[in-house]
C-alpha cells in the first residue's frame, strides 16, 4: 500500500551545517529511531539496519539507502528499500529541501512510501500514524543534534 507524508521543521542552525549533518552517517544513525547500523558504502550510499514496530508487526529491516539529486546545501532526494523478512517490505523516498529562514534553516520534506506483506495486511491502519511518529522522532532528534552544533 502506498503512503504519503509531508512536513516542515525549523532548525536552529545554518543551512551548511544542516546539510553537512544530513550527510553524516553517524548523525543519521543517532537520530533514526530504532537504527542499529548505518554504514556509508560510498558518498551516496548507505546500508542500514533498523527495527521498528507497527501495531502487531515487529520488523527488523535491512536495506540500502541512496542519495540522489544532490544539490548542496539546498537538498537531496533520499530513497531506499528495506526487507523486513517475514514481516514484509518497505520502500520509498523523500525529497528534502533546505531554505534559510529566521536566522536558521527550514527543512521541508515529502515522503512517498510503499509497504507490503504482513505490514500491509495487519498494520495498514497504523502505518500513517506510526510513520508520522517515526518522522517526528527523527526530526526532534535531528533538531537537537544540529542545535547542539
Amino acid at each position, binding site marked *: *500500500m*502506498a503512503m504519503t507524508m509531508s512536513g516542515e521543521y525549523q532548525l536552529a542552525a545554518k543551512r551548511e551545517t544542516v546539510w553537512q549533518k544530513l550527510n553524516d552517517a553517524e548523525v543519521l544513525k543517532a537520530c533514526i529511531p530504532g537504527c542499529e547500523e548505518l554504514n556509508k558504502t560510498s558518498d551516496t550510499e548507505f546500508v542500514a539496519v533498523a527495527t521498528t514496530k507497527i501495531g502487531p508487526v515487529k520488523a*527488523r529491516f535491512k536495506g540500502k539507502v541512496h542519495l540522489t539529486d544532490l544539490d548542496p546545501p539546498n537538498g537531496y532526494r533520499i530513497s531506499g528499500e528495506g526487507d523486513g*523478512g*517475514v514481516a*514484509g*517490505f518497505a520502500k520509498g523516498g523523500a525529497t528534502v529541501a533546505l531554505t534559510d529562514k529566521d536566522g536558521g534553516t527550514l527543512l521541508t520534506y515529502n515522503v512517498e512510501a*510503499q*509497504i*507490503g*506483506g*504482513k505490514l*500491509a*495486511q*495487519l498494520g*495498514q*491502519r497504523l502505518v500513517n500514524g506510526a510513520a508520522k511518529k517515526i518522522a517526528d522522532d527523527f526530526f526532534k532528534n535531528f533538531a537537537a543534534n544540529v542545535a547542539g552544533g
Partner: protein
Amino acid sequence: MSATGIGAAVRRKEDQRFVTGSGHYTDDINRPGQVHAYFLRSPHAHAKIKKIDAGAAGKMPGVVAVLNGTELATDKIGNLICGWMIHSKDGSPMKMAPNSALAVGKVCHVGNAVAVVLAETLAQARDAAEKVKVDYEVLPAVVDPAKAQAQGAPQIHEIAPNNTIYQWHLGDPKTTDAAFKSAKHVTKLDIVNNRLAPNAIEPRASLAEYDSGADSLTLWNTSQNPHVARLVIAAFVGMAPEHKLRVIAPDVGGGFGSKIFIYPEEVVCLWASRKVCRPVKWTADRSEAFLTDAHGRDHVTHAEMAFDAEGKILGLRAKTIANLGAYMSTFSSSVPTYLYGTLLSGQYSIPSIYCEVDAVYTNTVPVDAYRGAGRPEATFVVERLVEVGAREMGLNPADLRRRNFIKSFPHQTPVIMAYDAGDYLASLKKAMEIADTKGFDKRKRDSERNGKLRGIGYSTYIEACGIAPSQAVGSLGAGVGLWESAEVRVNPTGSVEVLTGSHSHGQGHETTFAQLVSERLGIPIENVSIVHGDTDKVQFGMGTYGSRSGAVGMSAIVKALDKVEAKAKKVAAFMMEAAEGDIVFKDGKFTVAGTDKSAEWGAVALNAYIAHKFTGAELEPGLKEGAFYDPTNFTFPSGCHICEVEIDPETGATEIASWTAVDDFGTIINPMIVEGQVHGGIAQGIGQAMLEGIVYDKEGQLVTGSYMDYTMPRAHNLPSFKVGTTMTKCPSNPLGIKGCGEAGAIASPAAVMNAITDAIGSENIAMPATPQAVWVAIQRANGARKAA
C-alpha cells in the same frame, strides 16, 4: 413420525463433543516425532524469484530442512489442477497456468508460498524463516478484474494472453437481441459482486505422515471431500498411488466451500514428510487464512432485462468478468459458468437469455466456490433487475414477480436447467403474510416521523443443488462424477454403522443421517453411528458442497438400506420358516403376513451373522450393503426472502428491522438443523451485503487481512429471523429432498440491497453497503435531486 425419525427436531448428536471441547480437529492430532512447517510467503503480488538463499536458515536451531519449489519440481511433484474444463466461445480450452505448490521462478500473489521451513518447533521454524533470503525482481501487478484484460496490463501467465482464461457464453444471442428490440422497457444495471473471504472458524491444517515400512502416506486434513483430495493428489500431483495414500478429514470446523479445494500446503506437507521421514504438521493462522484460502465471488457485471408493456420479461442478457485470482483453483472454472449462467432464469419464465463470462487472472489469491458459488451472483443479477425494473415501470415488485413466475412444471429454461417442481406463488404469498407487507406503508410513516428512512426488499430466488447427475456435469466439462456412495453395516447386535462419502463439517450429518436410519429400521437413533471422512474406511465419496449431502448422500443411504432390508427379509424368512415374499418389515419388526409370527430387528441381525438357520448355499451370512446413487436431475430449492431496513440518513447506519425467509426445501429431515442452516446462510448474505469485502490495493497488497479491517457479521447486526417453509417434494430423489445449505446466502444479498435502495431512493450503491457507502449514496441522490 417417530421422535427421532424424519421430520423430528432431534438435538444434534455431535454438539456434545463440539461444545465441550472434545472434538478431534486436525490440529488436535499429534504424531510422534512430528516437525512443524512454516511457509515463507511472498510479500509481493507479482515478482520474479531471482534467488533463494536458505544457507543461514538451515543452520538455525531446530531446523530440519528448508525446501523450495525447484526441489519440488526435481522430485517430480506435479502441479495443482483445475478439474472442470471450460471451453471458450471459439472452442478453445481454458488457459490453465502451471500452479506449483511452491512457487518456481515467479510469484503471482501476496501470500504465494515460496519455501517451507521444517523445524522441531513452530517457533524455531518461524525464526529460521526470517533468515531465508529471497531476492525478488518486483513486477507490476493487476488486481481489478475489470482492468485485467486491458492493453498494457501486466501479463501474469504466458499461457493466457490478456490474462484471459476463457470467454464463455450460454444461451442464444440472436433471440435475445430480438427480444430486446421488441421490448417496451429495458432495465440496465452495472453490478459488482464483492469479493469475500470464507472465514471458517477452524483455519486450514494438514498433518502428513510417511510410513517408510509400508511406503505409504497418511494425511489428516481440513477437507470437505477427502476422497477427491486423495484422487487429485495421487493422479495429478503424482504424490503416491491412490492405494498408498490415506486422507482423513476428521472433525472440520466449517468450510463454506473453501475446504473443497486441494491446496499447496497439504501437498507440501506430504512431500516434505517423505523427504525428511518425519510427520509434518502445519496449521494456518488467521492471517494466512485471509491470504491463502480461496476467496469467493468477485464479479463485475453489466446486465439488462427486457420487458413488454405489461411487465412481462422478454429477455435477459449479462456480461460478466469473473476474477479467478492468480491460479485456477480446483473447481474455480465452473463457478462463474455452469453454476452461474444456468441460474439466470431465476423463478421466471424468460423466453431468451444470453450470458457471456470472461474469466481472468489477477495478482490475487485464487477465487473458487464459496457458499452458494455462482448462484448468489446469479440471484443478485436477476433479483436486482426485476426489482429495479418494477420501480422504473411504476409496478409493484411483488406483482411483477407474480406476473412472471413459472407456474407449471417441469419447466425448461433457456439456460440448460429443467426445473422439476416448485410453487413460487405459495412462498411469495406466505412470506408476504409473515412479513406483514400490508403494514409496510404505516411502518414507513412511523420511521419517517423519527427521521429515518425505511425500505423493503424482496428476493425470490432459485438454486440448483444436489449436484449432480454425473453424465450431465460430465458433458459440461466436470472431470469427476457427482454421485454419492453409502455403505450400511449392521452389527450382529443390530446396531448400525453408516459409512458415507458425504462429509460433515457443521451440517449435522451424524444426526440427520441417523434419523433416516432410525426411521427406516425402527431402531433408536443412539444405535446408529455415521462414519465419514476417512478414505481407509469409506470406499469412495464425492464429499459435501452444493447442498448435496441430503439430496445425494442420503439417497445413497436409502439405496443401501433398501438392499439391507431385502437381505434381512431373506434372513427373517429362514428364521420363521416362511416364504420371503410373505415377510413384512415395519417399525423394526419382521412379521409373516397373515400370521402372528414375528422377529425383532436385533434377532434378525444376529441370525444374519450366526447363520444357523440357513446354509451357505442358500444365503450368504452377514448384513452389509453398499450403494452408489447418481441423481437424475439437480434439485431446485426456492423461496422468498423479504428484508426491511431502517436507515438513519444522518449517519448511513442501517438496521435490518425485520427478515422473513420462506423456503421450499422439499422434505425436511430435521427442521431445527434446517432452520440453523437458513440462519447461517442469511447471516453470511447480510455479511456480504452490508459488511464484508476483500480489498487489495493497486499494488496487490491485501489491506483487509484481519478482523480489524474485514468485518464479519455479529449478532447485533442481525435481526431475529422469521422463518417459514412451503413444500413441494423433489421428484428426482427417493426422499424428496432439495437441500438447504446455501439458500440463505443465495437469497439474502439481493433482499438487503433491494431494501436499502428502496429506502434511499437510489440504485447507485454497491455492496458492502456500509454506513459510509449508504451515507454517500444518500448525499449523491440528494445532490442529483437538487440539480434536477
